[in-house]
């Protein structure tokens, strides 16, 4: 029992510190900015607490909860995500209603939910973890209730999210009904012993629908552009990276354990391929005419969901490695992009269109370069991280025989260049309306440098990340 508590440190620590902070700010009237700084410290502390247990392995609570290298890696991923989201929130404090310390505290709980998802080995725990994440996002998206667009986004996210959750529960119910268990190993064992029947397949399909919503894969994507645009920018970032990653962590787990049996595979592989195909085509084509940058990144996120699904469709280790690497590349690029958007939004609170990037190079070259690297990495051009992510995903899918998917994916990736390069063009090639310099704080400068250099170095010399991913999967 003790070991379990120690191993769960990120979840417990984050939840406990969130509760402490909530009470503290309620009684001591803490300034929201100090709360934000404390939250950053919490993420760092949770990361440090994780360090001694990196090498541990184990399955707890009768197979409910697993602690392995993959879980640790994803917990670290979510902690980095939470940290950066909180940093972006602090940076964009002028855009968010003041004296609302909860805005900074809630991400701790969301991250705890995500960290829990990294360790699930049971459908009930999966549902609980996913709901912790989703419910807190309902709050986040509609947080700026004075803006009609935020309320509309919140409403859309709530309705479609609730629908997705019902599908997920229904799917879990079917699986439980047939196999008699919600535990991943038990379901896998059942599939080995007896043939996979129609209700079980139905359960699998329902679960995929529920998770397709999280991954914003077509045709479960309809909420994405509106919510990305309507939510405040830090939350859009959280949705783009954290929420999407949470969906994929769960997909990685369930497709490789309870539904790994060939009896299941022959049903889910075509579904995943179809979702991937639709997502890359729709996401990339629909992003082209967008003029609002957050909306454009919303559609681009749909297409990235497609590329990630392509990695999953390979149903092998290389595909999983590709998905994990892709996520790290995506994290670096998306945070750099959204940090720049937030910095621009400070001068332009009504929202940022691509036109607002005109001549950014002349206003602040670091911001322009960071955004350019982010766009080039998202577009998948060498030698940035995004390129290697796409390359690995394509290779994994090609090796597993999905030739058509790879060809369509490559064409769509090329089409995607149009809108990513459009941003670069605006920043470097277009004259700005005014050349008012934008000043950055030293910490933001350092962060932008780290994200930009990281995306180049870890692309050109990807070995450390690849080794890490390889060790996780071994």
């Amino acid at each position, binding site marked *: 029992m003790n070991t379990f508590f120690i191993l769960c440190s990120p979840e417990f620590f984050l939840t406990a510190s969130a509760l402490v902070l909530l009470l503290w700010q309620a009684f001591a009237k803490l300034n929201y900015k100090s709360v934000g700084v404390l939250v950053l410290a919490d993420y760092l502390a949770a990361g440090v607490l994780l360090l001694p247990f990196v090498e541990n392995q184990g399955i707890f609570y009768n197979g409910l909860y697993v602690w392995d290298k993959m879980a640790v890696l994803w917990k670290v991923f979510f902690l980095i995500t939470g940290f950066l989201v909180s940093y972006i929130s602090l940076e964009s404090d002028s855009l968010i209603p003041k004296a609302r310390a909860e805005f900074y505290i809630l991400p701790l709980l969301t991250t705890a939910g995500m960290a829990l998802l990294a360790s699930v080995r049971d459908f009930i725990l999966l549902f609980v973890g996913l709901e912790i994440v989703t419910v807190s996002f309902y709050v986040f998206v509609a947080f700026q209730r004075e803006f009609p667009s935020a309320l509309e986004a919140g409403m859309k996210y709530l309705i479609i999210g609730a629908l997705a959750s019902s599908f997920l529960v229904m799917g879990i119910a079917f699986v439980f009904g047939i196999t008699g268990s919600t535990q991943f190993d038990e379901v896998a064992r059942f599939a080995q012993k007896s043939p996979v029947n129609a209700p079980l397949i139905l359960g699998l399909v329902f679960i995929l629908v529920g998770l397709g919503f999280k991954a914003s894969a077509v045709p479960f994507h309809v909420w994405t552009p509106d919510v990305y645009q309507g939510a405040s920018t830090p939350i859009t970032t959280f949705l783009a990276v954290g929420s999407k990653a949470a969906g994929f962590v769960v997909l990685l787990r369930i497709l490789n354990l309870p539904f790994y049996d060939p009896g299941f595979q022959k049903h889910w592989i075509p579904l995943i391929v179809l979702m991937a195909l639709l997502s890359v085509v729709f996401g990339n084509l629909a992003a082209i005419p967008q003029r609002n940058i957050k909306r454009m990144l919303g559609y681009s996120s749909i297409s990235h969901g497609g590329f990630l699904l392509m990695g999953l469709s390979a149903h092998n280790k290389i595909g999983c490695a590709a998905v994990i690497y892709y996520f790290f590349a995506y994290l670096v690029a998306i945070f750099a992009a959204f940090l720049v958007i937030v910095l621009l939004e400070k001068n332009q609170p009504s929202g940022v269109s691509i036109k607002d990037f005109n001549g950014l190079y002349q206003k602040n070259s670091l911001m322009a370069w960071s955004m350019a690297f982010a766009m080039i990495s998202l577009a998948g*051009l060498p030698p940035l991280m995004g390129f290697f992510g796409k390359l*690995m995903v*394509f290779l994994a899918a090609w*090796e597993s025989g999905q030739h058509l998917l790879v060809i369509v994916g*490559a064409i769509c990736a090329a089409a995607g260049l149009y809108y990513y390069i459009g941003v670069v063009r605006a920043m*470097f*090639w*277009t004259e700005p309306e005014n050349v008012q310099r934008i000043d950055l704080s030293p910490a933001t400068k350092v962060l932008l440098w780290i994200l930009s250099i990281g995306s180049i170095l870890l692309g050109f010399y990807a070995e450390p990340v690849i080794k890490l991913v390889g060790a996780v999967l071994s």
Partner: protein
Amino acid sequence: MSFVSVLLLVPLLAFVAILFRVPARQAALGASLVNFLVSLWIYFHYDPQFQGYQFVQDIRWIQLPALPEIHYHVGVDGINLALILLTTVVTLAAVIVSPEGIKREGEFYSYLLAISLGALGAFVSLDLFFFYIFHEFALVPTFLLIGIWGSENRQFVSLQITLYLIVGSMILLVGILALLVLLPADARTFDIPSLINYVQTHPLPINKESLTFGFLLVGFGTLVSLFPFYTWAPSGYAVAPTAAAMLHAGVLKKFGLYGLLRVAIPLLPGGLEQWKMLLYALLLGNILYIGYVTIAQKELTTMLGYSSVMHMGYLFLGLATWNKIGLSGVVVLMVAHGLSIALLFALAGEIKDRTGEIKFSELGGLGQRMPFVSVAFILASFASIGVPGLANFAGELLIFFGSWKAQPWITALAIWGIVISAVYQLRAVQSVFFGKLPTHLKEVEDIQGITKKFPYILLMSFLLLIGMMPNFLLSVIKPTVEQYFATH
């Protein structure tokens, strides 16, 4: 460290120096001069009789899942040595030709160095992965150069060229990956010499070879502006700042041809056989159709852009026939075309800067005011047409010799291209330098001073040197080409 790596390190150091606020023009000038000298050193220390690559450096780089080990593997043989010389000469000329005090100077010269570095890297790489990456690395600064320093309509053109070339690169990447996947898992490698060794002993199934070759042909073909994937080139070069047009048309465009002769054809000879007739038809499109389109042009830089596209047809012809003479001709013509088109673009840039005009109808009689420019332009035009004694002649002659035996009819049609190119090129000479001098051009000045004239003299000297003594290149090219075919 191999001297070949020094070639890559020098621009990189200059790049860093510019970052640390060393005057950009001086840094670029120093780097391109050092690289020129290093390439000459490599040329004079190269042993033509040696079998295989020289000045080799091979370091393990990384391994990605599902991919073979990637190596930083560079080396020189007769073919890429010629292209290294071309790159360093054109880079030096392009840097000197660039104006002093240009806006955003640091960036401008960094981008020029980056194109040169990417091109050199692509030419010396013996690892497929680095070969591809270096080329991509050179493309991005090209877009920026056009987008920031280009002339009117640069926004549209830079976007068009970006999308076109990146789509070409993507198709190329799919082709390279398809090529790897064609091989059995234990034989997969990025190492180009090992790949060639492998396919010589284990021929690949013809239908798969054909599909993969198709990808590579379209990918490389787009980068070389093979008909009908050429529309990016004329407008791109017309708008690009002079140095960017010189480096791209003169050097970087050769990457596609180099890729075909170094990778696609040796690895997939069956693929070439299957696509040969289509390739002949397309290259005639380059020579005849684009040739006539070039005649119709009314502006100097656009005409040069089209003429560059047209001349690619000869190079494709040499590659398609794939024999010793033709291949030697291809390498010589790649260098010759690079030098002559760089010279023509540089001169067109001078004319544009000094007169403010680019339309043939607004120009004329400049020979009186600009004797140096007119002599240089006429020499470059003669080279471009293929007049004996200048570099292009040697290359074209070898290609026609090579192709005559295999495809007399196609060769005969291709030779007609020489007449076409003489028409448009001489018409350009006539309408720019002869006839009546318009009144608004009466004050135009010629290029003054030896330092300003140096890049032109440098390019002309090489055109003459190779034209008079083709052995300067052929002595290193021929043994390599012979080895190529002997091991086949």
